Structure formats: structure tokens, C-alpha cells
């Protein structure tokens, strides 16, 4: 029997754990796109080789059919409307699933660092000390702030809300907690499900 066309590529099996939500459209909602990009930004701020690690993780997890190299990763991340060079293209759900799996994978590798930073943050807060007293934490926050300011469009209303260092630090700590929460056994499912809170019908 002759085959007229190559077989339709199947999405990787490991995405099956992430159920497709009951959305009005096939595209990722706005908040999900922002959240995915910000979590990736936090990973980059935690790990100097974060962007390389994302590509490596996508290859290891056999997701490179969905996240096809550096430029495609950049295009996917640029669907974040807060970005300076935001792309007005949709992010398909399969690509979003792949990014969520990559985030959970990288978060698991960074668990030790994240726990240290969060414990240090908690101690500083209890003693009412400024965040500069924890060298590693201050380093992470400074890197996150510079990444955020370099890539986000300062004229967007969503970005104006983070115009001060304090607000950006809060956001960075919040993202750190979220990274910790999705680093567990079921982290990817938890993150995936949370992306559509208030969006499903």
C-alpha cells in the first residue's frame, strides 16, 4: 500500500499527562503566556546558563519537535504581551505544554537553590532585614530586575506596575515560590492546571 503523505507527527507522549483544557479557543490565554515567560525569566536569573539549559532540556525530553531551537523558543516567549518585541501570534497549546514540562524539569534541577533562597528570604523577613543581606538572593534579584527591564516594554500598563525595585523584587520572590511549587512530582500538572484558572468554561 502506498502512502501519499508522511505520517502525521504525534505530540510527545509525556505531554499526555497535561490534559487539554476546555477553552473557547485553541490558543493560550494571555495570563498563561505571561506566566510561562516570567517563569522562564526567573530560571534565567537563577541559572546563568538558563537559556541554554532550556534548549538542552527540550532536546533531552524529546520536545524539540515542538520547541525548535533558539529562535523558535524566542518567538514562543515573545507571545508574552509585556515583551518589548511582543509578537502578535498565538501560542499553540502543545507548545505551551512543552514549555511547562521544560519549566518543571528545570525547576526540579534548581530545587536546592530555590529552597535556599526562599529560606534565606523567610529569615530576612522574620528579622526585618533588607534583602541585600543575603548575597545569593540579592544576586538573583538584581539579575531578574535587569532581565525584566531589558526585555519588557516599559510603556505597557502591565509593566508600569513593576516600575520600582520593590515591586520587581516581590515579583521575583513570587516567581521563586511558584518555581518551587512546580518542581515536585506533579509540578508540571499543577502548573499546567493553574495556567487556566478563570479561563475555562
Amino acid at each position, binding site marked *: 500500500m502506498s502512502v501519499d503523505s508522511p505520517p502525521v507527527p504525534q505530540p510527545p507522549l509525556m505531554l499526555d499527562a497535561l490534559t487539554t483544557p476546555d477553552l473557547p479557543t485553541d490558543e493560550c490565554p494571555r495570563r498563561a503566556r505571561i506566566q510561562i515567560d516570567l517563569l522562564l525569566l526567573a530560571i534565567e536569573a537563577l541559572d546563568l546558563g538558563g537559556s541554554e539549559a532550556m534548549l538542552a532540556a527540550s532536546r533531552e525530553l524529546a520536545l524539540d519537535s515542538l520547541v525548535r531551537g533558539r529562535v523558535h523558543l524566542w518567538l514562543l516567549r515573545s507571545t508574552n504581551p509585556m515583551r518589548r518585541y511582543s509578537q502578535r501570534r498565538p501560542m499553540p497549546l502543545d507548545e505551551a505544554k512543552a514549555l511547562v514540562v521544560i519549566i518543571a524539569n528545570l525547576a526540579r534541577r534548581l530545587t536546592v537553590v530555590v529552597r535556599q533562597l526562599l*529560606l534565606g528570604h523567610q529569615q530576612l523577613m522574620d528579622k526585618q532585614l533588607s534583602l541585600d543581606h543575603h548575597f545569593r538572593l540579592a544576586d538573583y534579584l538584581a539579575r531578574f530586575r535587569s532581565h525584566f527591564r531589558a526585555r519588557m516594554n516599559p510603556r505597557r500598563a502591565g509593566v508600569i506596575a513593576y516600575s520600582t525595585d520593590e515591586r520587581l523584587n516581590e515579583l521575583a520572590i513570587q516567581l521563586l515560590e511558584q518555581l518551587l511549587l512546580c518542581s515536585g*512530582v506533579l509540578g508540571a500538572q499543577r502548573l499546567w492546571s493553574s495556567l487556566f*484558572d*478563570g479561563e475555562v468554561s
Partner: protein
Amino acid sequence: MTIQRQYTLPHCNLVLQGLSANDSDPMSPLSVLMNVECHLPGATDATLTGGREFLDSLVAAVNRYGQQLLSGVVRPAVTPGAQPPMVEVKPGDGNYHHLVVQQQPLNQPVNDTNALAPLDIKLTTVQFYDLMEAVDQLLADTQTLPDLTAQFQAVPRRLVKPAEPMAKRAAPAAIGAAALAATGLMLFFVPPPVVEPTRPEQEASNAGETDAVDPVVNGAAGTLPGDGADPVAAEAAVDQLDTAPAITDSEALTLLQQELTSRLQAAWEQDPLPSEDLTYRLVVSEDSDILGYKYQDEAALAAVDTTPLPQLTFLPVAGAEPVREAVAQFMVTFTAAGDVVADPVEMAGDDATASNGTANPVGTTNAGTPRGTTTGAAGPLPALDNRISEGDRIRQLNTTLRNRIVDNVEGPSTGESMSFRVRLDRNGDVVGYEATNPAARRRVAETPLPDLVSAPNSRLEQADFLVVFTETGVLQVSPWDGWPQ
């Protein structure tokens, strides 16, 4: 056989005890869950214990709060007002979370003696993560409680409370609509703006060609601002303009007179024609703008709106600015026959008009020649429809005309070039003439042409000739349409 499964993390120790389904297999799942213990070292010394109900409630609470931390969207309670669940996690101050466990056994009625306060355990984020991770490991473990699996559900849209109450969200739209309505209402009472044409301020530097009769203008004698259609304002303007310097140059006066007449004639709708002649006194600037007008009798006042004067009158906007430019005054008559006749008015104290002697044009534009020649001869020549076609005849007529002018011309050059269009019939009689430049119009009396008109009503074939008296006194005569071939 009793078996025990333990999930150990740095800040959480979850222990499940139950009966094994298969005694021989150490990895067999629990068939009956007897006891659940949860230790939270570092957070509390108390040990949370309970049965299956406690475990289900713990899993649900942890799932719900974990998702809330990840998304920031608060999932509303299933039924508000119902009995609080056995285990609850709530956000606290700072970065703390509160694990609230009801210690009251559900099957005992609550009364004053046996009431137990719920246990409130303060957790850091890392401690909560360890609790959640213990629960996740239990959920992911298919060999302990296979029926307990992860069920993550996103919060449906309808359950999410909007970030702001409806009244607050509607407020900007309501304010906008109200402001639009109020603005519309206010603008309803504002009259539409009247666009006034601006005209450049003329300096009195034109005095070289105009003799300023009264160069000192009263500072208060500015023209009134206002509606150009208001006869009273226009009349006031006339009164004020009496003090303005007058145009006395006869050439300028003649040009103004012609332009004024043609403008009025063109703008006059003649609907209806006046029953009697309407006479107005007009003040005209050098640019032939009508600065003001004044009716001369009651009929003219009543019928002013049928004339084009209100539309054409220009009233300067800056009322305080005194009129410094030279003006001319005309008596304009709108005749019952539909003609417009403009006469220059001699201003009081104006002796400059005598400088040209007879040159001051008096009479209608249709009878522009001061010597009172017949109007048909001196006015604009009608179109030539019955023209002479023979070239010999034209050459002959050209010579005839030239000779007749040469015979009658008096005196030497006038110093200005004058050109006329002269019409002859085939017998050589002058039918009429027309001045074609201002100097000619003014000084026609110095030429022999008025005397030469001999057949103003001739019906014979006719031809036009160009007659030029040059500045040096040379006479040039040529056929109007060029020399015949």
C-alpha cells in the same frame, strides 16, 4: 497484615497505616486505610492524625491552595455558609501560610464543654511545599492507594469573582457617558463660531499715491467689530471712516469705481428687483473692500437685505485699531432696472480732485466719458458679430482711421501710454471705442476719439482696430485681430 507507607521530606512526614490486600506481596496496595499521621517538624510539635476523611480533606485543601499560589486566582468555597472542611489552608501575613485543622470530631455535637479550637499551624512556603510534595508523592504512588489520584481542575470562569465589583467597573463608563452628555448640553447653548475673513493691515505707506486729507486719525475711530450684515454697524463704520484719509488719485478712483460696480452687479441677485432706486453711500478701501455703507433713504434701509451689500461688507475684527488706510466714498444706486451705478463722492475739503480738471469721472460707469458722448460709443464694445472680412477694406480703414486721428490730435505726448479699441464700420465711420488700459480710461478726454464718433448706431459691417498713443507721442494703429493675410 498491617503495613505502613511513609513519605518523608525535610519538613513533612506523612505516614499511612493500613491493611495489605495481599499478605504475601510486600508491594501490594492498601485495601483498608486505618490511620494517617502527618508530622510537620519545625512548624509544630503536634501530630495531625485522622482517617480517610482527614486524608481526603488534606489532599483537597493542599491541591486547592497550591493552585491558588501558582495562579493567584482564588477558588471560591464550594458552598458558602456550609460547615468548614476538616483541613483548610489559608494565606497569612508575610509569606506565611496557615494550615487550619478542625479537631472537633464530626459525629459529636458541639457544646460548650467539649468544644475544641481548631489547630492553626503556621507554615513557610518551603514547609508548605514539603507538605504538598508529600501529598503529590502519595497521589503519584500507584501502590499505596490506587483510587487516590491527582485531579487538577482549573477554576471555571464563572466562579472567578471579577477583580473589581461591578459598580466600580461600570463607574468609568458611566462617568464618560455623563461627561459626554454634559458637554453636548453645554455646547448646545454655545452659538456656532462665525468665521470672519482676515485682511492684512495696510500701512499708511501708500500715501505716495494718495493725498492724506486728514492724516491724524482719532484713536477711537476704529471700525466696530460685529456682524457684517448689520446695517447699523455698517453705518457706524461709515461715520467713523469719514475721518480716514481719502483716495484722491483719479486713476485709482476710476479703477475702484469699475471694480465696485462689477462686483456689486455680479453679487446682486436682483430677486426681487427694487420698486425704486436704492441709494447707499459706500466707503471702499484701496483693495476695493467695502468697509461700510449707509442708506440714503428709508426705502434703501428697508431693502438693504435684497442688495449684496451686507454680504460684501468687510468689518475688521480688531475694533480698537484705528483706520489708517486711505478710503474712497461712492454713492451706489441699485436701479429699478437692475443696474448698479456707482458715483464717487467728493469728500469735504478734498481739493485734489481738481488737479485733473475734467478728468474726475462723473456719471455712471456706462457713461464713463466726461464729455457726455453717447453711452453706446464709449462703453465696453459689444461683441463684434457683423465683421468685415475683406483684407483690402481693413487696410484701407486702418489708414483712414490713422489719418483722422492724426488730423485731430491736439498737442504733444501725454507722458503715458494709452491704448483703445476703436470700432469702425465699412464706410469709415467710428462706431465706438473702448479704453483698454487705466491711463486711457482716465485721459480719454485728451484724445480726439470722443469727437470722432460719427455713427454710433451703424448697422453696417464693422471692424476693430487697436489705437495706441505711446508715451513718446507716437500714434500706432493696427487691426485688432492682426493684419489680414
